[in-house]
């Protein structure tokens, strides 16, 4: 036994890999989990793809506006998966009665979030790649026609998804499994104000005001601008990132406060029992 073993460094990579490894192995073996990654995106793609085929036949519809529906769908799915990836990973730890093992390990609660972010990246990459490939194969939609802007759109959406995932996790930690419905539902609260399929300009004033505080609305407006007008409103994208930073700061602050409170009140010890 070596009592001089140093503490685990704050930036050690192995703990993150350990959390990621568990998630990947979980997915490797589970057909329902694979369905979650591929089944819903595929169904959404088919429904919206068929709609675009119909709309293209209506003379008054601009073809670029129609194809932007598919781009919106692919990016919306990415946002949804990013948020869900964090919250559902946390729920899986609760369901498997494993959370306490992680909380006594020589890592911080932020390592748990970091591992969740990594596993969310893997899942989003898998899910989005398949959906993008099928969109091209079935409906000749090339998401890469967004060019380099696509990278920034994806990053801005991932950041928003992770922030909401962390916030949802904090709420589940605080209020228990009764709040677990949020893991699947919270993102839809933002959908009407994210300008996913319609521009902000068509929203009623109150909804338009709310949408200005939602990072995703700038991304979807930017995507339409690139596809329809061929230009990117850089200022809007910057605004999306600024809001993302604000969302992430709030989410991490709330998560940190909930963990501190949990250690005082013990409500995390009853999760899953």
């Amino acid at each position, binding site marked *: 036994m070596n009592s001089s073993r140093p503490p*685990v460094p704050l930036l050690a990579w192995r703990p993150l890999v350990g959390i990621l490894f*568990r998630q990947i192995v979980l997915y490797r073996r589970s057909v329902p989990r694979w369905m979650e990654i591929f089944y819903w995106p595929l169904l959404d793609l088919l429904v919206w793809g068929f709609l675009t085929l119909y709309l293209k036949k209506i003379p008054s519809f601009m073809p670029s506006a129609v194809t932007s529906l598919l781009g919106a769908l692919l990016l919306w799915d990415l946002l949804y998966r990013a948020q869900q990836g964090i919250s559902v990973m946390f729920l899986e730890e609760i369901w498997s009665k494993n959370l306490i093992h992680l909380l*006594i390990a020589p890592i911080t609660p932020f390592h748990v979030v970091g591992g969740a972010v990594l596993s969310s990246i893997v899942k989003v990459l898998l899910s989005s790649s398949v959906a993008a490939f099928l969109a091209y194969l079935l409906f000749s939609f090339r998401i890469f026609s967004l060019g380099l802007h696509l990278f920034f759109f994806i990053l801005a959406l991932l950041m928003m998804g992770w922030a909401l995932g962390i916030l949802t996790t904090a709420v589940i930690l605080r209020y228990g499994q009764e709040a677990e419905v949020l893991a699947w539902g919270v993102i839809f609260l933002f959908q009407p104000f994210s300008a996913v399929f319609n521009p902000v300009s068509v929203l009623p004033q109150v909804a338009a005001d709310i949408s200005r505080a939602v990072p995703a609305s700038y991304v979807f407006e930017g995507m339409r601008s690139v596809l329809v007008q061929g230009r990117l409103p850089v200022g809007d994208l910057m605004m999306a990132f600024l809001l993302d930073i604000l969302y992430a700061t709030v989410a991490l602050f709330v998560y940190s406060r909930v963990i501190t409170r949990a*250690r*005082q009140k013990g409500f995390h010890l009853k999760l899953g029992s």
Partner: protein
Amino acid sequence: MAFGETPEVLLAQEVRKRYTKDGPWAVDGISLDLRRGEVVSIVGPNGAGKSTLIQMMLGLLVPDSGSIRIFGTDMATGRRKVAHRINYASTDLSLPYSLTVRENLMAYALIYNMTNIRERIEKVLVALNLEPFRDVRVGRLSTGQVARMGIAKALINDPELLFLDEPTATLDPEVSAQLRATLQGMVRDRNMTLLYTSHNMREVERFSDRLYLMNRGRLVAEGTVPALMTRFDTEDLEALFLQMVQRERESDE
């Protein structure tokens, strides 16, 4: 002993905890210590405060007052400095059922930042007689094997201080005896400290160097098993346990 460490592996001083502002104390002014190479049991009826006390020792809860220091570090503020040197197994916890025994151990070896991972996993599998099940999913193990798996996870980081919460509650007598022998060997060979809770008084009697008896959040007796039995004039630990709990109940009335 590293620089700055106290001779006690664990030192709890006047620890108090309650969950609501005006509620009863779950742990009420407990002071205790654990020394290197000891097997110490905490026994007490349900609701005595054992779990709350252990959760504070692990840094999962912070005391309302008092302190718990492990290897000289206050667990309320510095848990992460010593968490790699301790571990915990409980029948209340589990591990992901879809992962095999080896995959679960691999994940935790990584989480504990271990370097010699394959070697460590093999050692733990051998120690717990789990080699035949290394590639079996945890969900397909028997209850006893799952309990051993939990202890295997708790040994993956080669802990110097191990907390076991009723580790043999789901094991048959033969497997319990094997597990005790394995743990005793580790305590002897590696000078590991073991804190143990159990409702099986015969097991505690055979296994512990010292024990603390808790009731209603307080320590009501402590010492070696023979010393306690002499002091309270009882033939076995179970009789002592019942006598202490009865005495507490009468004094409350």
